[in-house]
């Protein structure tokens, strides 16, 4: 048994491919816990960042700078009464949030946090991700219909139309990226070393292709990669029902859209699903266009020196966070009432610094690299999400459809054809 | 202008003058639609500012309905008033000014004055089914339709 567990450590494939159920389970748990923590962090960050964009402070009461606010929220949601409308379709109403959450979490099976840091690597990885995340809309439609109320129903209708429309543009952009894994191009676009010309749908394969071709796909066949990335970046916001495409839950129009009738724990599942879906689509974007787990310039700035330089980044990031928290303790009011909060913030800074130190231990440092760069890129997307929400008004339904069908779809087809042409000739 | 109207309608315009710089005319109820039409079409009073009523229980004709009109081209206001008895109806001016729709509904709601030819004369501020018209002088200030309150709100009193 111990050998079975140890045996995987020396392998260089994902636990799924190695057929090691124990490690696959460990990875699943890690991803699940990590994702939950990420969602909690996102909750706090979104409120804080949005607040600072809007000249206010955001949560300040629960814990220093509201750091414990997400936990308080989670507790509140769990303790809240779970209301089910009398005329609701009980079974469907009950299943819908689980459907949404399960699909949102399942896609992370194939997300490659590193060359071996994924639960498994599927031959149809990207197809699997798109397919399973497209099932999430079923949960939304079920929720909207089962509530037996008009606003959720309209929210569900909007959601289904929106998802189906944007999935097409999204798929075209993804195909363009998949094409790039096999095409190297000649002339001005000729880069990298040649392979056998077969592309791959595997998430890990796509990143490895970027490594082999010495370019992120966003820069490949400039500007085709950039346009495809742009299409995906727009479509993914629409897919996740976020501003400015948050029509299914537009609070000023449909009160809360498809989850109007949900409360307490079930509502929190929708919340969880929304954020993990955001992280999932961001992961796709990072994998397909931004080099996945690759650190910046792995081919040009290679060598031990550069490796060492980039490997201290994870620990360093945590040191910076710890320093910010420390400054925060200094700026806390001196009143005795804030003593506990100040100590708590100091302890938090200490914990962050400790994590930073742990991340600098050489074995950990080497293994954490890929995960760090991947997470950093995803975090950039998450920030963009919050930024959009603070900046943009909401699209109207017909305008949303217009953008999807009349702008993104033709653009996607054009990029696909152009990529194929440029790649072959 | 008032003089010409008076000539045109004769004794129908019983009083037309100016008080504190504001002109007004009192007309007979039967002439109301005609005069309002003329005011809009010939005298260019294209904007119906307000329609309201005054309850004078001590008069023979209890209610006084007031149209406040304004003319954009002339930058002038005029008030047209007519007295009616309780239960008497006034022709609706919705065909002349669509703005009159809600204003007439409010007058109906508050005074119980009917407007003939109004497309949808029903209560507007008070709930449908409410008994009584609160702006009548005989309606007390803390009076309420306690039956309605009990049935619809499930409480003894709304006070």
């Amino acid at each position, binding site marked *: 048994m111990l050998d079975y567990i140890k045996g995987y450590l020396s392998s260089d494939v994902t636990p799924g491919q190695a057929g090691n159920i124990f490690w696959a389970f460990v990875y699943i748990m890690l991803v699940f816990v990590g994702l939950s923590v990420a969602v909690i962090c996102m909750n706090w960050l979104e409120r804080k960042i949005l607040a600072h*964009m*809007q*000249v206010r402070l955001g949560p300040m009461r629960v814990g220093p700078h509201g750091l414990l606010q997400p936990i308080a929220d989670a507790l509140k949601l769990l303790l809240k009464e779970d209301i089910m409308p009398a005329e609701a379709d009980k079974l469907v109403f009950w299943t819908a949030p689980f459907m949404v959450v399960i699909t949102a979490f399942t896609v992370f099976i194939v997300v490659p946090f590193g060359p071996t840091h994924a639960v498994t690597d599927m031959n149809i990885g990207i197809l699997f991700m798109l397919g399973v995340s497209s099932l999430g809309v079923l949960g939304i439609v079920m929720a909207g219909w089962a509530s037996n109320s*008009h*606003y959720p*129903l*309209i929210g569900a*209708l*909007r959601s289904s139309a929106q998802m189906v429309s944007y999935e097409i543009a999204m798929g075209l952009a993804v195909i363009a990226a998949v094409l790039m894994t096999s095409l190297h191009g000649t002339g001005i676009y000729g880069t990298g070393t040649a392979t056998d010309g077969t592309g791959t749908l595997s998430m890990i394969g796509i990143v490895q292709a970027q490594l082999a071709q010495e370019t992120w796909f966003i820069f490949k066949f400039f500007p085709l990669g950039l346009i495809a990335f742009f299409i995906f970046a727009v479509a993914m916001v629409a897919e996740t029902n976020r501003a*400015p495409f948050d029509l299914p839950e*537009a609070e*000023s*129009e*449909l*009160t809360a859209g498809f989850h109007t009738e949900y409360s307490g724990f079930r509502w929190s599942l929708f919340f969880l699903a929304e954020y993990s879906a955001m992280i999932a689509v961001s992961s796709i974007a990072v994998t397909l266009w931004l080099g996945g787990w690759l650190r910046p310039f792995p081919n040009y700035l290679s060598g031990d020196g550069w490796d060492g330089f980039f490997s201290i980044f994870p620990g360093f990031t945590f040191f910076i966070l710890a320093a910010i928290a420390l400054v925060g303790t200094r700026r806390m009011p001196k009143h005795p009432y804030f003593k506990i909060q100040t100590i708590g913030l100091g302890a938090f800074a200490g914990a962050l610094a400790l994590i930073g130190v742990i991340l600098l231990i050489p074995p950990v440092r080497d293994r954490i690299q890929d995960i760090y760069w991947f997470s950093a890129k995803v975090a950039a997307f998450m920030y963009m999400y919050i930024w959009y929400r*603070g*900046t*943009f*008004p*909401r*699209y*109207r*339904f017909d*305008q949303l459809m217009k953008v999807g069908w009349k702008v993104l779809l033709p653009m996607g087809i054009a990029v696909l054809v152009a990529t194929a042409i440029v790649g072959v000739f | 202008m008032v003089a010409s109207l008076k000539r045109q309608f004769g004794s129908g315009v019983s009083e037309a003058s100016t*008080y*504190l710089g*504001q002109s*007004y005319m009192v007309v007979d109820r039967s002439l109301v639609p005609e005069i309002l039409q003329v005011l809009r079409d010939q005298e260019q009073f*294209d904007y*119906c*500012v*307000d329609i*309201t009523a*005054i*309850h004078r229980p001590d008069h023979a004709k209890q209610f006084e309905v007031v149209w*406040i009109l304004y003319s954009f*081209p002339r*930058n002038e*206001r005029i*008030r047209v008033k007519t007295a009616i008895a309780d239960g008497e109806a006034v022709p609706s001016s919705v*065909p002349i*000014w*669509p*703005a009159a*729709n*809600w204003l007439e509904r*409010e007058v109906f709601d*508050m005074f119980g004055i009917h407007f003939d030819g109004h*497309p*949808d004369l029903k*209560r*507007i*501020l*008070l*709930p449908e089914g409410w008994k009584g018209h*609160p*702006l009548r*002088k005989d*309606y007390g*200030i803390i009076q309420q339709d306690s039956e309605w309150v009990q049935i619809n709100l499930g409480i003894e009193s709304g006070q």
Partner: protein
Amino acid sequence: MTEPSTYISHLELGEKDETYLDSNELIINMGPQHPATHGVLRVILKLDGEKVLGTECVIGYLHRGVEKIAEHRTYTMFNPYVDRMDYVAAVSNGLGYCEAVEKLMNIEAPPRAKYIRVILTELNRIASHQLWLGTHALDIGAITPLFYTFRDREEILKIFEKYCGARLTTHAFRIGGCQYETYDGFEKDVKKFLDFFRPKIDEYEELLTTNRIWLERTKGVGRISDKDCIALGVTGPVLRASGVRWDIRKAQPYSGYQNFDFEIPIGTNGDTYDRYLVRMAEMRQSVRICEQAVAGSPEGPIMAKVPKVIKPPVGEIYHSIEAPKGELGYFIVSDGSTQPYRLRVRPPSFVNLQALDLMVRGALVADVIAVIGTLDIVLGEVDR
């Protein structure tokens, strides 16, 4: 003026639209508890999918019987009640009421009182438009402008508080003038605010005016022609956005507005975007008026000679002012006693709300929200 092109018919709920797909017409209750109906407005929407086939407004949830209360209060006692109608622009309400009673009694407020009134009223107009802008943008989905406008509105409310002790329902004016002389540094505060506020309008505009989504959401939405506006009695910025250069401050000046140099901004298309631009321009004009009023305010008494007991002679008066929302009129009938025999308020929001049905027919649900926002209604005034 030709025949008005619209005729508002009520909603026929039984009507059936012939379509190939046997789709259901949805009847949706928007409100009275709804985040975007600005209070307790209830709109019954008849929808075909997302398309609005018709609307019916149900109002009265905030009905407090202000007109009935007036008949049982003396003229002085009723003064604070008017603040509760359009609580966003309480100062304007008070101005209209005080001027109407003054006119009925044939007295006139002294020049200094008029200047103070103008300053406060214009500040209140700015505050009202700020609230409108914030909530309107929020309805359309831009959450950030709300906090910007509230931050700046706070400065106005602080001035109000310093002047009369109240922030929202100010009760700033009395019949015959003002109760309070300005506090020390009032002029300085107002000037400071105006200098602070001018770049802020640019900031708001930067957020929205050229924002593509904002343009798409507002341009051509809720269009209403000048003829329809006049036929429906719509006044205020909505009327001006349709291209009618009409403002009571210019047309029939009151409270000394003829002494000030300002322009009436108008729009051309009468759509939501033009109404937005008109209101933004109005804020700038209000700043201009305030500046002139602060610079030119005369010295002197702030209260006219008013008898201890206010007893207007028998008669009636209609007086209207340009409130932030449109024409706010008071029709007062006096029987010579200390209480009004009949007091009628002509609320701009109430009349403007009538245009909702015309403006949203054939539009989408999201447009209904935008149009309710752009009409700038305050339910306290609609229901009174």
